[in-house]
């Protein structure tokens, strides 16, 4: 079982010796243009099957969310006709030419801004999916990431409700596809990492909205980015899952968002479920003892 520490190093805590620096993603939603190149590059590299041809009517998002066959998902949020500058609504500065002349993507006529951000597995420091996996199919890699071993998973599905972000899922088709019946999610391109390559999504991202690198360095970069956005007047820019003291011990893949997390389909205050597990086992022990006591009581002072 893991313990909480102020600077967790998941790879070394798991027993990796000579582990490289922890790797991760910093996804900067303020520069995402919604091209979905990350989604396509991910599927191409990882050989993931097509998983749905429905028009969802969620702006230009016809992907819907992460799942067994979607490891990157670009959210599209149209925020319509609120007064520009009203609470929580900053039109995005497109050019910071001279400090005095910001132009805005949110048109003054329509008062619309179009938020986009690419979601991915968070590779939590305290990963519920990994904790609850009964077979050991989910493992912590030397890069500090969380990966499913396709040949070990038996499809019990426990990781699915355990994930506080709804990331991992069991692949249910199409028939004949690889790994049907087992849990699937982003591997942070484990195979590419071992060859010192950048994950496919970050490689494909044309605006560096998806940045890959050493987690420590990404966090510094992200804080700098937030500071410069705040200085530029984008006051609602905020980091999500960059804090090692949050409910999952900080994420390997964290985000810069321009609105509340739930607007993007992310939980506002995720907590790894296994943080409460010692208390749950104590409750179970009390329950078991109650059952024994009850059963014994059922037999005392009875005639046979």
């Amino acid at each position, binding site marked *: *079982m893991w313990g909480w520490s102020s600077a967790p190093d998941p790879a070394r805590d798991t027993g990796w010796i000579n582990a490289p620096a922890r790797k991760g993603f910093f996804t900067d939603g303020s520069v995402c243009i919604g091209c979905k190149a990350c989604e396509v590059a991910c599927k191409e590299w990882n050989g993931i099957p097509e998983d749905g041809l429905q028009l*969802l009517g969620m702006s230009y998002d016809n992907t*819907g*969310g992460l799942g067994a066959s979607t490891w990157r998902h670009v959210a599209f*949020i149209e925020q319509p006709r609120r007064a520009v500058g009203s609470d929580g609504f900053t039109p995005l500065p497109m050019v910071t030419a001279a400090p005095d002349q910001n132009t805005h993507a949110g048109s003054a006529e329509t008062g619309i801004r179009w938020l986009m951000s690419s979601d991915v597995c968070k590779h939590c420091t305290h990963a*519920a999916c990994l904790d*609850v*996996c*009964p*077979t*050991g199919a989910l493992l912590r890699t030397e890069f500090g990431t969380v990966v499913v071993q396709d040949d*070990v*998973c*038996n*499809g*019990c*599905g*426990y990781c*699915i*409700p*355990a*994930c506080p972000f*709804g990331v991992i*899922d*069991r692949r*249910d088709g199409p028939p004949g596809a690889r790994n049907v*019946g087992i*849990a699937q999610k982003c591997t942070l391109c484990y195979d590419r990492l071992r060859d010192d390559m950048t994950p496919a999504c970050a490689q494909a991202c044309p605006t560096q909205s998806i940045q890959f690198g050493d987690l420590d360095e990404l966090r510094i970069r992200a804080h700098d980015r937030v500071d410069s956005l705040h200085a530029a007047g984008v006051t609602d820019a905020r980091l999500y899952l960059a804090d090692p003291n949050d409910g999952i011990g900080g994420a390997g893949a964290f985000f810069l968002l321009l609105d*509340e997390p*739930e*607007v*993007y*389909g992310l*939980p*506002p*205050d*995720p907590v790894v*479920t*296994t943080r*409460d*597990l010692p*208390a*749950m*086992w104590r*409750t*179970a*022990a*009390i*329950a*078991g*003892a*109650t*059952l024994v006591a*009850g*059963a*014994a*009581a*059922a*037999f005392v002072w*009875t005639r046979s």
Partner: protein
Amino acid sequence: MVPLATFTSYYGRPIVKASPWKSDIPAYLFLGGLAAASSLLAAGADLSNRPELRRVARIGALAGGAAGTVALVHDLGKPTRFLNMMRTAKPTSPMSIGTWILTTFMPLASLAGAAEIAALLPFRVPIAGRLLDLGARPAGLLAAAVAPGLASYTGVLLTDTATPGWHAAQRELPLIFVASAAAAAGGLGMAGVPVGEATPARRMAVGGAALALVMEQRMEGSMGLSAKTLHSGKAQRLFNASRALSIGGAVGTIVLGSRNRAAAAVCGAALFVGSACMRFAIFEAGQASARDPRYTVVPQRERLRS
């Protein structure tokens, strides 16, 4: 707690994913609990020399455990790989712990149950029959020793998830599950054993049903907003049926259980089915709480504000 008047989500889509489990899992929650409490009842009957109650309870433990195991394996995405559960033992995984509990329990309960079945056969099984007779008591007692774990870990199995309705019920669910297990096993004993020998079964059934009802009430308080999922849709129908059957069965048992064999059987059946309904109700409520982002977002927002 006053729920937020409004909350935002991404087009109303779920944040956490509902478990992919079908009815196999709530069925197992019930059957595993039935098997566990039955083995305790069987052990008590064995030690207090109630052969009829012992027989029914041991067979109940065997049948419940076997059917539950089949349900568990059937639910896997790759049933052929069910043995991968044996690769490791992880205290952070209630499913891993539960697998080892069940793996310990099943051979013991099977041996005790098989001895009872062998005794019912019109002929004597040579050698094996003798071994069964010798092994039945220690096996049955050892099964009973493992049984509290089997009956209670399933509560942790559900609460150790991000499913809002289950996780929020963590202080009550294991107690509800053992109580419900007792009600089911007691109900089975009442239905299968003459009233004279079924006193412990009646006590177990009524005590279990009463404790379950009390804890369910407390659970609704703990669940907060997600308690709403117990009062709509499929979960509501199951939950209402469970409470009606449990209350009716318990009252009927107290009034008629020791007098009339038929009435005892009906009451036992009601408690048995009521226990099953409760497992399905809690399962369905949790699934519903995962499918609606409200139950994920609102409590987390409240937590951030406090």
